[in-house]
């Protein structure tokens, strides 16, 4: 079982890696993009000019989910030093393939239940970063002198990972405005920006101050709406997700409608793994990437984010790291502890 077709192509001592993604590919501005960024950076290339692509690293996108297992096996056959997959949808496929190739190193992001000795699993504390952006939004509202601000959250397809975003975000807001009205909406789709846009407009018209969307392509609708309204002079915001979406939000000069972004640095997984493989220290098991490890964070790119707000958020960040601020990973738990209001659409698994 698990015979290798090719010897590991050793070039200059650098390990080889293949990234396997779901249908959205490496331009999703989310974990695929981040994982790719990390890989490219490791080899000293840039995304725009990936010189070593095809020699030391490459990427294969699976059009449908029934391609996951074959793509994993194919990558293993071709003899890469390490194979990386992103997202929980890969967990079962990897769980099946990894034991068949015990000498092959695998990495998966966003999953902690594969449990194979040759699989390193990265799990990010999205609730922590989300807490900070929620906090930042609330503080910014306060700084703007808004008495009774409302907030919105738009999710793609509900699920455990997205719930961490929502719960953390809500906790962050409530820590400033304990009675703030919070709306949430799941489009049940990662690719329908028009739904997010219509909902965002609807909410902004109802007086919502800031909307955080963790919804893939659907979330682009929120940003588009926020740009328009800010362009018209309305004081509203969108919050980006996964990577710093400040650039996406720019509508004029340096003005961006994205107040801040909840950053999830999946690139650190790529970098960490590749380094370990090179050093020969790669080990299976779960790696928790929290704020302390700089796995998650928030962006300060937007100059409109008030300095006072940044100061307070930085303080909160220290408290999160130290554990002084208790955050929850599931809606159930958060609800039980009275940290979030009832009636949200979040689902725990």
């Amino acid at each position: 079982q698990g015979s290798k077709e090719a010897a590991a192509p050793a070039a200059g001592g650098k390990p080889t890696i293949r990234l396997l993604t779901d249908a959205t590919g490496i331009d999703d501005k989310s974990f695929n993009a981040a994982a790719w960024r990390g890989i490219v950076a490791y080899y000293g290339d840039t995304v725009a000019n990936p010189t070593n692509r095809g020699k030391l690293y490459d990427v294969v996108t699976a059009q449908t989910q029934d391609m996951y297992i074959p793509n994993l096996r194919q990558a293993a056959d071709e003899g890469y030093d390490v194979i990386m997959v992103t997202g929980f949808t890969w967990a079962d496929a990897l769980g099946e393939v990894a034991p068949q190739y015990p000498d092959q190193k695998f990495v998966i992001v966003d999953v902690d239940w594969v449990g194979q000795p040759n699989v390193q699993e990265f799990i990010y504390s999205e609730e922590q970063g989300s807490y900070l952006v929620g906090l930042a939004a609330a503080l910014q509202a306060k700084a703007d002198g808004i008495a009774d601000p409302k907030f919105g959250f738009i999710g793609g397809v509900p699920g455990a990972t997205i719930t961490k975003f929502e719960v953390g975000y809500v906790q962050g807001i409530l820590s400033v405005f304990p009675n703030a009205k919070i709306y949430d909406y799941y489009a049940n789709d990662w690719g329908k920006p028009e739904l997010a846009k219509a909902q965002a407009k609807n909410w902004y018209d109802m007086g919502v101050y800031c909307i955080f969307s963790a919804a893939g392509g659907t979330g682009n609708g929120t940003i588009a709406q926020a740009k328009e309204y800010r362009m018209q002079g309305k004081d509203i915001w969108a919050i980006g997700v996964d990577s710093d979406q400040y650039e996406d939000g720019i509508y004029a000069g340096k003005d961006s409608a994205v107040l801040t972004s909840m950053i999830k640095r999946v690139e650190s997984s790529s970098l960490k793994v590749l380094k370990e493989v090179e050093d020969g220290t790669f080990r299976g098991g779960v790696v928790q990437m929290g704020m302390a490890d700089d796995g998650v964070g928030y962006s300060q790119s937007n100059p409109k984010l008030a300095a006072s707000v940044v100061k307070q958020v930085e303080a909160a960040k220290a408290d999160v790291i130290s554990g002084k601020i208790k955050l929850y990973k599931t809606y159930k738990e958060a609800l039980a502890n009275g940290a979030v209001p009832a009636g949200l659409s979040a689902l725990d698994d």
Partner: protein
Amino acid sequence: MKATKQASLQKKRLFQSDGAVSVLVVLLGFLCGTILVALVGKNPLNMYKAIFQSLTGYNIDNGKMNVRYIGETLNYSVPFILCGLSMGFANRVGLFNIGGEGQYIMGMTIAQVVALLGPQIPFLHWVLAIFCAILIGALWGGVVGILKAKYEVSEVVSTIMLNYIALYLSRIICLQLPGASTYKTANFPETALIGNTTFQRLTHNSLLNNGIFLMFIAVILFWFIMEKTNLGFGMRATGFNKEAARASGIPVVKSIAISMAISGAFAGLAGGIVALGSFKYGRVLSGMDNYGFDGIAVALVGNSTAGGTMLAGFLFGMLKNAQALMQGKQIPKEITFIIQGLIVIFIALRSALKIYQEYLDKRQLQKEVITK
């Protein structure tokens, strides 16, 4: 009978033979794809290496053989072929079934339901699951047939709507299943799976499963129903000339409803096979797999016949399997979509060749007239 007729026609006019045209069209599609790859500065040879490997398992670059690729190509072909049969069957009765996707989704969904909740009796369990998948596909297609036959609702429109309804309905249902999270259910019991250990051994652990037998049975059934039974006779008559069929006492309304149901059954079967063969758990869909839509192209390339559709399905399966191999060689996977699209567009050449043939006939006659 039919075969002899076709053989004699073939002798007379090679290019009016649909088979020859299909081959020509496929070659043309690849030719354009090759040019495109070369234009963007990649080596087209790599594309063919990938295709060769997905077809034979042989890796030209390192001279290694891995039969698993053959297994995967066959396995990918199964849903293409079945969805192609779905489209093709409706097509033969004069209907345009855009709803393969919805029927496929419903088949998948119900197979998952039965796999998780059905009686865990070996053999019986998966048979029941597959049977239910076929049944729900038939229902999902049959509704379209009834709406068309009774209310003159265009099947194009109703199938489009039913595709989306199926997608979201599937989510609602699957989220209620045991152990359902937002993207998967609990694992299926062993009795529900259609894996085949012999295949796994033979094809070096590919996903190839018993579904391929079901596919072959479906292909034979398609041919058998269409060509050998009086049900098929009535359906073909309806497809060629609905009014004449009706005037001859053929129950056209029934033909349409039944054919849409059979059409749906093929797609439902595809859904069931993918659910139980390529996965060990139920999926909670967040988007479409697109096999149903691709089936339209498969049927068009296969000219809606059983054999042609099977071959066209293999072609599509092979291209799908080659996608990952191509990407490994830095050829964009989109090239396979472009090739597929071009192949379908070039099918229009079938009629162009007919026009050309008529032109030749005419020239011939004109010469006769002149020399006379």
